[in-house]
């Protein structure tokens, strides 16, 4: 079946340092991969998603590269900001167009 693994439950780092949140997946199909972000008491919203033409998606300084060989879609940012503190979900969509989410990574950025 389809599944997503996020190995870090909690990540705490200092403002200005780089961010990398891990995401690996399993799917019988060729899925699309997404990163959703959920700020406190808000709805999850799309941060970025994979493309089929090998472009690297970027948004708000975040980027992720789909590596089919390693089934990974890690999220990266060169310099964390305080406003990046949130819950980040990696998700995949494949056969039935529903999202299968990872367990989420709570990112806390400290001054």
């Amino acid at each position, binding site marked *: 079946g389809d599944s997503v693994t996020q190995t870090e439950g909690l990540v705490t780092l200092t403002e200005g340092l780089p961010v990398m949140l891990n995401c690996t997946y399993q799917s019988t199909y060729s899925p699309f991969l997404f990163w959703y972000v959920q700020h406190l008491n*808000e*709805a999850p919203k*799309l941060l970025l998603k994979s493309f089929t033409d090998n472009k690297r998606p970027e948004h708000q300084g975040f980027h992720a590269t789909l590596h089919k060989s390693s089934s990974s879609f890690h999220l990266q940012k060169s310099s964390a900001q305080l406003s990046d503190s949130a819950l980040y979900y990696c998700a995949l969509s494949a*056969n*039935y*167009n529903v999202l299968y*989410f990872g367990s*989420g990574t709570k990112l806390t950025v400290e001054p």
Partner: protein
Amino acid sequence: ETAVFQTPNYHVTQVGNEVSFNCKQTLGHDTMYWYKQDSKKLLKIMFSYNNKQLIVNETVPRRFSPQSSDKAHLNLRIKSVEPEDSAVYLCASSGGGARDTQYFGPGTRLLVL
């Protein structure tokens, strides 16, 4: 700007009661979803509807029943709630394709006493 609306925001009830949650989207999408976010923040698909028809039912207990009057509305009824039903229920909509962005509502938080 909010385009997926959910009511109520919050509901407290007793074990065994029936509850209903409403969801409406103004994005013109054909596909709507219900997800459950539990106390550990695990987010799981429950149901998917395309143009009023049930597409996906992810092994949800039979006391849960989605209801759709038209493609812009998808409600969720829970007959005889259990303590483990305490969670945030998130409604979403999309164009229905695998790479389409899903837009989430603010959620309905259910507390079962």
